[in-house]
């Protein structure tokens, strides 16, 4: 005989057990009841089980589930279970719970011992899929472009202009600021270090070549990937989530033409513009430091700059810009379309979009360096 004020039981000789439930069987007592019920179920023999519930003052779903857990093993073994003294207002809930209780939770998925190898294989396949998805998107955008060239009326000019405003014009202030600071930092480091062997005017060569050829376009691309690529992915992703893209498709329209093409084109136009503005701003930053910190006059800076750099350096930087834009736009659109129905995947693909486009921009810059070196530019 076990004694407490919620659940008492008395196992008889014939294997039968008499169980007496008492007091409030509600969520407030759930923790205590949880262990009591397990103990009582353990104590049950092989005979009939009698559950006396006349002392139960209140019951909620938590209590009803516990009662169900108490009797399920006995029922499963084919023993007789008799309820006594169930109040009318409790019976309907107990019945409702009993009706659905044969659903047991599924066991959690087992981790296979080869999971690590499986993961490696999967990520390799994913890499392949990534590349082909990017190529597919590039192809789809090229096709859409071709269609638009044939029928210029179908081009979404308003959308493209709107996107150009968002990704181009509105990023001008932040691009100006960042590239100005980068130019200033390069100049300061150049002057500081070249001064040791009296070659501080070479700092100007450094600023000019580095900014125009490499850093201007690279910094701007990275900024744009973070600022605009991520917002493309988030926008397209949440449209995908809310079936808006499916709605466009079912209307017989092409989401690539309506959503992606204007965005990618806006980026392809905006990035060269931002690169130009950014490079100029970096040169101004470099000039300011040369004057204030290096003690060179503005005239010296300009003359030296004119000697050091050629139009080629400028052209190399500018040529790269639209390709960088294409990479950023395609990655952003591809990742946006991969978003599944849940918010977590939206966050995941937005991050992926930024990480992948920055990575690809830098890799592409490496290829461009080799290419321009081999054609002698």
């Amino acid at each position: 005989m076990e004694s407490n004020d919620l659940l008492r039981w008395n196992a008889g000789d014939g294997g039968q057990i008499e169980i007496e439930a008492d007091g409030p069987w509600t969520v407030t007592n759930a923790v205590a009841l949880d262990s009591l019920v397990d103990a009582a179920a353990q104590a049950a023999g092989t005979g009939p089980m009698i559950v006396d519930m006349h002392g139960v003052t209140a019951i909620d779903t938590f209590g009803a589930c516990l009662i169900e857990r108490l009797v399920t093993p006995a029922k499963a073994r084919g023993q007789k279970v008799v309820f006594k003294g169930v109040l009318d207002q409790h019976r309907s809930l107990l019945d409702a719970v009993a009706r659905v209780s044969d659903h047991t939770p599924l066991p959690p998925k087992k981790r296979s011992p080869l999971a690590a190898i499986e993961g490696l294989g999967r990520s390799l396949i994913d890499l392949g899929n990534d590349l082909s998805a990017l190529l597919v998107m590039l192809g789809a955008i090229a096709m859409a472009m071709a269609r638009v060239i044939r029928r210029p009326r179908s081009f979404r000019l308003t959308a493209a202009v709107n996107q150009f405003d968002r990704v181009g014009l509105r990023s001008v202030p932040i691009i100006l600021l960042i590239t100005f600071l980068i130019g200033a930092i390069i100049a300061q480091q150049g002057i500081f270090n070249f001064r040791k062997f009296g070659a501080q005017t070479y700092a100007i060569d450094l600023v000019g070549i580095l900014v125009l050829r490499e850093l201007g376009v690279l910094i701007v691309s990275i900024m744009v990937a973070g600022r605009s690529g991520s917002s493309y992915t988030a926008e397209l992703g949440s449209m995908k989530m809310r079936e808006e893209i499916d709605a466009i498709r079912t209307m017989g329209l092409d989401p690539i033409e309506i959503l992606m093409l204007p965005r990618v084109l806006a980026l392809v136009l905006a990035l060269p513009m931002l690169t130009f503005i950014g490079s100029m701003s970096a040169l101004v930053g470099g000039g300011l430091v040369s004057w204030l910190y290096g003690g060179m006059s503005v005239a010296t800076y300009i003359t030296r700059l004119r000697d050091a750099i050629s139009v080629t350096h400028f052209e190399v930087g500018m040529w790269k810009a639209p390709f960088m834009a294409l990479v950023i736009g395609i990655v952003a659109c591809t990742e946006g379309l991969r978003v599944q129905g849940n918010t977590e995947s939206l966050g995941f693909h937005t991050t992926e979009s930024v990480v992948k486009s920055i990575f690809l921009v830098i890799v592409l810059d490496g290829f461009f360096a080799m290419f321009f070196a081999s054609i002698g530019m």
Partner: protein
Amino acid sequence: MSDEAPAIRLTDLVVGFGNNTVIDHLSLDVRRGEILGLVGASGGGKSVLLRTILGLLRKRSGTINILGANPDEVSSAAMRAVERHWGVLFQQGALFSSLTVRQNVEFPMREYLQLPPRLQSSVAITKLGMVGLSAVDAEKLPEELSGGMIKRAALARALALDPDIVFLDEPTSGLDPIAASDFDRLIKTLQKALGLTVFMVTHDLDSLATVCDRVAALADGKIVALGPMSAMLASEHPWVQAYFRGQRARNNSIV
């Protein structure tokens, strides 16, 4: 029943957006333990009324009293204690998309109660069973559910804490008639067993006729008719007449 303080008392409530007044000096009592059905034209402000009672929209004037607490007067801690005693089924489900169905139901339990995990998940599975979802469905993500399944899962979540009041925004829309009447029976069962108060926005004439103790008709921002089905049928208000004596009502042989 009626001598007790009402579960919800709305007095002179005004809610609007800009110069569009949606709820206009509305007063309504919801008694403890009753199932009140709210009907009204599409776009008539039923969801707005519901969201205002829940504190999701700001009212212009009037008072709200839920379970004896006035949100304007009591502290936010006291209000949270009241919120633990209500459950809400939103019109679009509003399931957490990154949690499985079972985790969605367990979420309020985990936040408010310290339960053994096994009991928590078995109660969650039971609630899901009660609304007609299987243990297999319980491990799915919301995106893998049909519209009707989302409704059911959201109802199970609204009922997770055995609330005193549940607010249901069109619970049976999107369910087939059999599932809808199962649902009605479930609401009735829970009401009897748990003394549940139900505030239900619905267009389902069957639900209104079979489970609702009283019906409130919202038109022009006010309650224009209130009472059992017979009172609706007897009402002189033109919109109420059109609603309850129209073709659809006749087909449902309510008249």
